[in-house]
């Protein structure tokens, strides 16, 4: 029962099935018990009525034919083989005059006006004129067997009904649960950022179909809005490039002709313009990389370890400046299908983040390793890690952690990392590894034969 507790705690259907099966079983037991009691009562009443009729008919015989007639009738009864009715005639000195004395318990032989149950017998004893006593009894073995059979049958029916109730409930529950599970799976994928996920819709117009349909319509609308938002930002970035190019070249022209004090200001403005340009360029890069997802064109066989080494070489001076150690353990030797420049950029952005968030003198561990058909790249720093609840959204455009205001950047680095991973069909996982953040990127390895 304890093992079932979590099922009941987490499944509404399990609770419903259990409750209704229990209720059903209790009602069934009550009804069947009633049937049994009534049946037992009827059997007893019938036995009593038959005893009284028996006694009356023997009295009639005695009245008409006196003792010899009664003895004869009682003897005849004793000799009837299958009769469960027993008669016994006892004389004045207690001697058996007729009937089967041995079978009846002595307690039954006391005179009594009402039937008594003793052992397996129901019996009545009545004194007759002349000092004789007549006992008639009913062997209850047959009745008991009947009632036992009845109880067994009723119990069997109850068990079968309960089993049907439980199995039926479970089957209905499982069917419904499977449909709920489909909807839950869809919601889980949406939660992980896959807005293209849809719940399967069935032709049968039931409550689950309505729920799935409603969910899908909502997701379509959400997806449309997200797409529109992206399209607007991408469009803005694209449209801004020409005016920004003019602004930049205009500033440079002006700076060349300006007196030194103005030139200094113009240099600052140029730097600001460059900053704007780089934000728009990064936005466009994210957009175009995402748009190319699933497109194999431009992807070639590349060695992941070489890419990581190139990036480490690029960042060695920056790491030195922060007295950070970058340790690389290449254990994969794997090639994968990728765009070298994009992958360099992805690893560069991740290492850049790792160095940025590392404490002075910290250590960054990078490793590649083969896992089954995949290759896994892990970059682990010893910085503060991600704040709670800042998981999947770290990959959104312009997403910046609460503590990131002090560090340079626009929150586009990880957005680009995700876009590049999506482009390559890679999976990214972020995990706080106390201390620090571990980023794990999993990609399909390229078979050596096709490399």
């Amino acid at each position, binding site marked *: 029962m304890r093992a079932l507790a979590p099922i009941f705690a987490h499944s509404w259907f399990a609770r419903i099935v259990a409750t209704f099966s229990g209720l059903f079983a209790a009602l069934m037991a009550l009804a069947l018990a009633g049937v049994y009691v009534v049946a037992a009562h009827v059997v007893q009443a019938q036995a009593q009525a038959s005893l009284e009729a028996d006694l009356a008919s023997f009295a009639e015989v005695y009245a008409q034919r006196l003792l010899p007639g009664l003895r004869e009738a009682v003897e005849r009864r004793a000799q009837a083989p299958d009769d469960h009715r027993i008669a016994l005639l006892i004389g004045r000195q207690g001697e058996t005059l007729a009937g089967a004395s041995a079978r009846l318990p002595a307690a039954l032989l006391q005179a009594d006006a009402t039937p008594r149950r003793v052992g397996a017998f129901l019996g009545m004893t009545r004194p007759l004129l002349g000092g004789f006593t007549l006992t008639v009894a009913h062997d209850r073995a047959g009745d008991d067997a009947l009632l036992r059979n009845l109880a067994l049958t009723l119990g069997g029916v109850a068990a079968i009904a309960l089993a049907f109730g439980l199995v039926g409930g479970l089957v209905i529950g499982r069917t419904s649960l499977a449909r709920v599970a489909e909807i839950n799976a869809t919601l889980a994928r949406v939660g992980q950022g896959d807005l293209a996920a849809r719940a399967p819709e069935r032709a049968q117009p039931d409550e689950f179909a309505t729920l799935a349909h409603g969910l899908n319509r909502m997701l379509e609308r959400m997806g449309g809005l997200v797409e529109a938002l992206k399209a607007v930002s991408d469009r803005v970035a694209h449209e801004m*490039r020409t005016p920004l*190019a003019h602004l930049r070249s205009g500033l440079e022209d002006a700076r060349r002709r300006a007196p030194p004090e103005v030139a200094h200001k113009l240099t600052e403005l140029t730097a600001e313009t460059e900053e704007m340009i780089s934000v728009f360029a990064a936005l466009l890069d994210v957009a175009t990389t995402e748009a*190319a997802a699933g497109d194999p064109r431009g992807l070639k066989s590349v060695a992941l370890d070489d890419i990581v080494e190139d990036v480490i070489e690029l960042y060695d001076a920056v790491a030195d400046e922060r007295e950070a150690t970058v340790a690389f353990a290449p254990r994969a030797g794997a090639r994968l299908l990728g765009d070298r420049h994009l992958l360099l*950029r992805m690893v560069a*952005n991740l290492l850049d983040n790792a160095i940025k968030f590392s404490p002075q003198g910290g250590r960054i561990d990078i490793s590649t390793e083969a896992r089954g058909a995949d290759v896994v790249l892990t970059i682990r720093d010893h910085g503060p890690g991600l704040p709670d609840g800042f998981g999947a959204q770290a990959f959104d455009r312009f997403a910046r952690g609460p503590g990131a205001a002090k560090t340079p*950047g626009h929150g586009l680095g990880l957005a680009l990392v995700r876009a590049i991973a999506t482009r390559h069909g890679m999976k990214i996982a972020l995990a706080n590894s106390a201390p620090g953040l571990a980023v794990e990127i999993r990609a399909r390895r390229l078979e050596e034969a096709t490399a």
Partner: protein
Amino acid sequence: MGGTALIIEDDPRMADHVAGLLRGLDYAAVIEADGARGLRRAAAEPFDIVVVDRMLPSLDGLDIIRRLRQLEIATPVLALSALGRTADKVEGLETGADDYLPKPFADEEFVARVRSLARRARAEPHPEVLLVGDIEIRIKARTVHRAGKHIPTSRKEFELIRCLAEHAGHFLPRSFLLERVWSLRFDPQTNVVDVHVSRLRRKLDEGFEREALVSARGEGYKLDPGA
């Protein structure tokens, strides 16, 4: 330097700006705003350099380059584009452009690239020794000396000083150095280049009165040959 340059660009302000930069390098620059007309001129006249915008009315910039190469015209071509994507760059270079520059660009970047193209077109032999003021760089031996003092350099630091020496006296922007030294066609948006340069500068200028490696905000870095 100097010579003749053709600019095929439909944005008049950008075309004027590029023409101004080329004139600064002593080029006589002419502008064509239409792709088809630009192609005809590039095919008919002997230019020393052609600057082509990627997106043009009537004929795409990449098509112009492709046609020129089909006609076996080897004039150096610098492609410009508002689509500053790595993939576009690769496509542009594979089409036959000699270099590819995303707009908007820094003037120094454009100038450095034109200078590189011109040097390559003149097929100048790569000198074995580069001399910049009191700095001596031996290419084969991969050594750097300043006023006779040996300056130890890492692999990339040597590439960096060599690139700066080849453009001595001119500012080189970060993106240019990234591409030439690290073969990276993207901007990591951090100060990686600055940190490498300042490390090189410490080695190079330590103990010397004159700063050989100078930087200017918004312009980049320059190896100064001195007076």
